[in-house]
């Protein structure tokens, strides 16, 4: 087998193993199912009445933000999975096998796409129940979901790298929240970026999390006519901006993480 074929084989085998684990660890399934439902309900009913969005209902505005937030938080799952693998005996098995050095990480980020698809499905259903609707075309909506998954995939690689820097599974959760919280909340996920004060607004406008949220809103048709055009370039071109960031993140963090893994493997 050529080395490219064996690499894909190895990645698929590791990803398959991770997917089996998702279905077999009840805690994980509960987390996949319940946390998106909880977030949708929490924001829709707790903040829904106190935040006013011009020309639309807050719930309509909210769902894309929740999607973005949930896939961001889902990346901690990638980190935790890798940190756990590194601690368990199975990693010595992997290292002693003639498998591709990138397969453990690439397999994990790939299987987490499955995880994200599951949680997006759950969130969509919950969203539909509380009044969210897709008002654009089906193709646009699919593009919106694909964009969310692409961005989530990129963030998975960041967390894969972070997981290899920290000493244990316990640390990874705290470490990832340090990265994920500001990125998720200083953004247009829950409130319009324009409503934020000066420096925060600038950060929010250039934050890729805002762009992916904005892109999803546009593609789901959740931006009512008459909403003022955003002034910042990233929010005017959210699809390109999101794709650009996603590619850049993978291009930087995948090699970093794989290198780090190979080094760690050498003790």
């Amino acid at each position, binding site marked *: *087998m050529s080395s490219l074929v*064996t690499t894909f*084989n*190895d990645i698929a*085998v590791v990803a*398959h*193993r991770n997917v*089996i*684990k998702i279905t*077999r*660890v009840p805690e994980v399934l509960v987390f996949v199912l319940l946390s998106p439902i909880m977030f949708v309900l929490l924001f829709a009913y707790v903040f829904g009445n106190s935040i006013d969005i011009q020309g639309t209902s807050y719930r309509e505005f909210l769902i894309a933000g929740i999607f973005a937030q949930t896939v961001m938080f889902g990346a901690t799952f990638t980190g935790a999975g890798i940190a756990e693998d590194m601690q*368990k*005996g*199975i*990693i*010595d*098995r*992997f*290292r*002693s*096998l*003639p*498998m591709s050095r990138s*397969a453990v990480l690439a397999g994990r980020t790939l299987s987490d796409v499955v995880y994200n698809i599951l949680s997006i499905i759950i969130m969509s259903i919950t969203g539909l129940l509380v009044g969210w609707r897709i008002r654009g075309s089906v193709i646009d909506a699919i593009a919106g979901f694909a964009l969310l998954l692409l961005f989530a995939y990129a963030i998975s690689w960041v967390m894969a790298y972070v997981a290899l820097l920290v000493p244990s599974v316990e640390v990874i959760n705290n470490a990832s929240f340090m990265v994920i919280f500001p990125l998720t909340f200083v953004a247009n996920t829950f409130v319009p970026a324009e409503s934020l004060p000066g420096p925060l607004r600038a950060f929010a406008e250039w934050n890729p999390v805002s762009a992916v949220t904005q892109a999803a809103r546009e593609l789901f048709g959740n931006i009512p006519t008459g909403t003022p055009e955003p002034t910042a370039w990233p929010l005017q071109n959210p699809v390109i901006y999101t794709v650009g960031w996603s590619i850049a993140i993978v291009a930087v963090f995948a090699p970093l993480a794989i290198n780090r893994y190979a080094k760690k*493997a*050498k*003790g």
Partner: protein
Amino acid sequence: MTTRTAIEAYGLTKRYGDVTALDGLDLVVPEGTVLGLLGPNGAGKTTAVSILTTLLEPDAGEAKVAGADLRTSPELVRERIGLSGQYAAVDEVLTARENLHMIGRLYHLGRARSKQRAVELLERFDLTEAADRPVKGFSGGMRRRIDLAGALVAEPPVLFLDEPTTGLDPRSRIELWGVIRELVSGGSTLLLTTQYLEEADQLADDIVVIDRGKAIANGTADQLKAELGGERVELSVVDAADLPAAREVLARYASGGVEGGEGSRALLVPVEHGIDSLSRVIDGMREAQISLSDIGLRRPTLDDVFLTLTGHGTQSESNDQEVNA
């Protein structure tokens, strides 16, 4: 008979800060033989195995495993080895069958062959009934068996078993010995580490005794025993008052110091001429009118060997401050 070497390593060295885990270790294992790497905790056994299985890079030294150079073609080494470690290196959430199947796929055996190997190995290791249960619920002995099965998936020519029976109860240990013996009779080369002297004696063709990262002795179990003072005469006197006289008699035929006596009526002394020495001791005791309750010739156990070689026994904690003393 031409013998080729399956593992050859020269001058393997690994340091962690001030601690020297391996200090220029040489190993040669001919094809189809079993080498027992014997030493106490912290002697450097696992470090040696980790280096030879490409998990760890040595600071110095070179090695060839199954004909492939460790430094220049580690991928080739990984294709030709199987490793089973101190703790089970399998996924606990997956079933036994899924684990073996996954390992087969990662050795690039292909889907059908991986499935077939999993079935064969589950059968061979008596795990067929438990095949579709997650490994999490397995007993210690079952875990070791599934782990060992994992090392055999690709039928690698060279096997590394790092303390395969540590932590097992005596019955599981003896069962696993049976499995390992069977495996070796199939012609695999095996490097086995152990802190159990009996285990090396039972399984290994050759033994390298390792302490503080260095080989301090090697040979077959019998050679090692013979080299180290050979046999001993052990006796017990009926009357403790005879002990000083008995010591005097023993000293005449001994090739080393007389041990024992304090608090017991037993004496132990190394001798050079085996049975001959024994009968002379008996004659001597008779002449001195010392009555004995027991006398015999004892070959040293590997525990004795270890004590003699290292001067600190197998139980001594490996105190790193003493490394360069």
